[in-house]
């Protein structure tokens, strides 16, 4: 028997969320949203329980989680870094900035550094196109970021 572990309070909360959507398989996306709001992310154990409660396969739940970029399977870092990939940011070098963050922190998009400090994600247009390319760290917004600024931004949060 494959075993997974989860705290009782979490299981109860998940069962309650599923119930609030009548345990309907067709409500999967809404259930996942609610679960992510509650726990911050959607680890494998959480997906297993949701699959069981909604009577759908775990593979299907995982398929949906990986299809939508707003679902995440890892907890966000203490300082979540987001790079805008809207058209304006993209053409002004957003992608190069993203590559530089990935290289310096040594993590791919959607994942968190081993020390739990930083996570990287991509954003759709944040509506600050005048400042393109835009990077946010937590609540703070950085504008006109160039590859050369990346090290400084990271340093600010490393102490």
């Amino acid at each position, binding site marked *: *028997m*494959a075993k997974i*572990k989860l705290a009782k309070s979490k299981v109860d909360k998940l069962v309650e969320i599923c119930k609030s959507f009548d345990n309907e398989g067709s409500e999967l996306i809404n259930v996942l949203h609610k679960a992510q709001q509650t726990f911050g992310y959607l680890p494998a154990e959480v*997906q*297993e*329980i949701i699959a069981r409660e909604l009577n759908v*396969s775990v*593979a*299907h739940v995982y398929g949906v989680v990986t*299809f939508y970029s707003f679902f995440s399977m890892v907890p966000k870092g203490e300082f979540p870094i987001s790079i805008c990939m809207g058209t304006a940011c993209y053409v002004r070098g957003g992608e190069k900035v993203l590559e530089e963050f990935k290289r310096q922190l040594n993590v791919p998009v959607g994942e968190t550094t081993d020390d739990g400090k930083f996570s990287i994600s991509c954003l759709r247009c944040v509506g600050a196109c005048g400042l393109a390319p835009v990077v946010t760290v937590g609540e703070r917004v950085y504008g006109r970021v160039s590859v050369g600024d990346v090290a400084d931004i990271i340093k600010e949060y490393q102490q």
Partner: protein
Amino acid sequence: MEKMIKLTIDNKLVEVPEGTTILDAAKQIGVEIPTLCYMHLGDMGIEHKPGGCRICVVEVEGRRNLAPSCNSKCAEGMVVNTHNMRVLNARKTVMELMLSDHPFDCLVCAKSGNCDLQSIAIKLGVRELHYKGEQSTYKVDYSPSIIRDMDKCIMCRRCETMCNDIQTVGALSAVNRGFESVVAPAFEMDLEKSTCTYCGQCVAVCPTGALTEKDHTNQLIRDLADPKKTVVVQTAPAVRAALGEEFGMEPGTLVTGKMVSALRQLGFNSVFDTDFAADLTIMEEGTELLDRLKKHLEGDKDVKLPILTSCCPAWVNFFEHHFPDMKDIPSTARSPQQMFGPIAKNYLAKQMGINREDMIVVSIMPCLAKKYECQRDEFKVDGDPDVNYSISTRELANLIKQANMDFLGLPEDEFDNPMGESTGAGVIFGTTGGVIEAAARTAYEVYTGKTLKTVDFKALRGMEGIRSATVDFDGLPINIGIAHGLGNARKLLEDIRDGKSQYHAIEIMACPGGCIGGGGQPLHHGDSSILKKRAAALYREDEGKAIRKSHENPYIIKLYEEFLGKPCSELSHKLLHTHYFDKSTDIEIE
């Protein structure tokens, strides 16, 4: 009355019922539009038309875009062109784009010659690739039965339909998006860790080499060449009804004799029949059925009915994963493959004067789940498996071709004894309804003490997914249920769980059609008339047998006298029965 619609396809007038797709309408006038993602499995009621690959596009006059013919409906007065320059160029472009992210492994790919992607590329005359793109690189996933090489996946998602909708296993799903998307088990774990049953139905429909069976032919060639090894082979009933197709013979041609010759020429020391073990299965399973039935009639509340057959290993995997709470309902009798193994290695080896370790037992199976089954720990003695490995019908055909044999010209040969003698009851194990008919023949005679007037229980035969019939045991009505395809099995199981089941015995086979439609058989490309012909062939072989009831097989009688004692004896239990495991994911609450 169905409303009829008139349209023009390639300048020909066609009349079709409303709702018909352009693809089907074209077929009606002999125009075969190439398809890739589309899948229609005849009267098994399996249809899959995601309209994703767009290889089947046609031009509809007055529409700006080309339309995928597999999921576009005909309309009154429509004018369709299936092969003008625009259409042909579009198809070629679609194919070139697909190939730009496909490894050029054709020369060494297991699917080569039988691959839809390859044959359509040939048909379209693709001679060069104008697109150079990034090629995906996935780790190849080796499970005991199936190999997943997702670099070759074209995202047609046929496998998903088989696994999720037909088998209701839910082991596979499309994951990720865009270039990264692929069909995979949950959390992209290896298939072996997922809820996969190894039924092989995904392999049977995959148009490319993305899903193939684990091939054991090289191991077999090595063992056959080793003079220290005695290599014996058993052949499952469904193989003889399909092997000929690989050599261009009509579906439903029985090639039992030629198959035996071929195996002998390949160098097996003895050529035996799994049908013999099927007769043995009936002795054990039938005895268990009668025992439970008698106790039930005496009012024993602990005894569980219905009894479920247990000869299909994918079905065993299914209930271990999905219905572990019901794991004490199936018969404990092992599958015929796994009854053959221990008898060969414990009884036959002694008769032949050889050690267990020097005997290699190989099975030829229509099945991919059997490859996993023979590796299960319960079926090993000190690490030595009762059945060393299992070869599919397709692999056997390849091996015969490698050995340069003229299969059609081979003489008809006979199985060796003692384990080659079988009855008609053993033969029909290969088709849906056959196991329970074989059991009914023996159980009736043992229970009533009378001889059956006719051994044909025609009510148990057929191709509907769920069937039921009542057999009269001399005044005692026995209700029998039959399901093939795991989705149908699920329905019967849910009824049992809800206390709604009226059956005494249920036969379950994982593959649609039973083993004749197994995941290791020659590809039937969705033509269920092929399955019906294979089934008819097995019933023909049954009819032609002098002995048609398992308990009358003289070598089975001898085996009990000399070795096992009686059915369900202590030794039988040790060698021929098994137990099941709870393989569901257990959520431990902290």
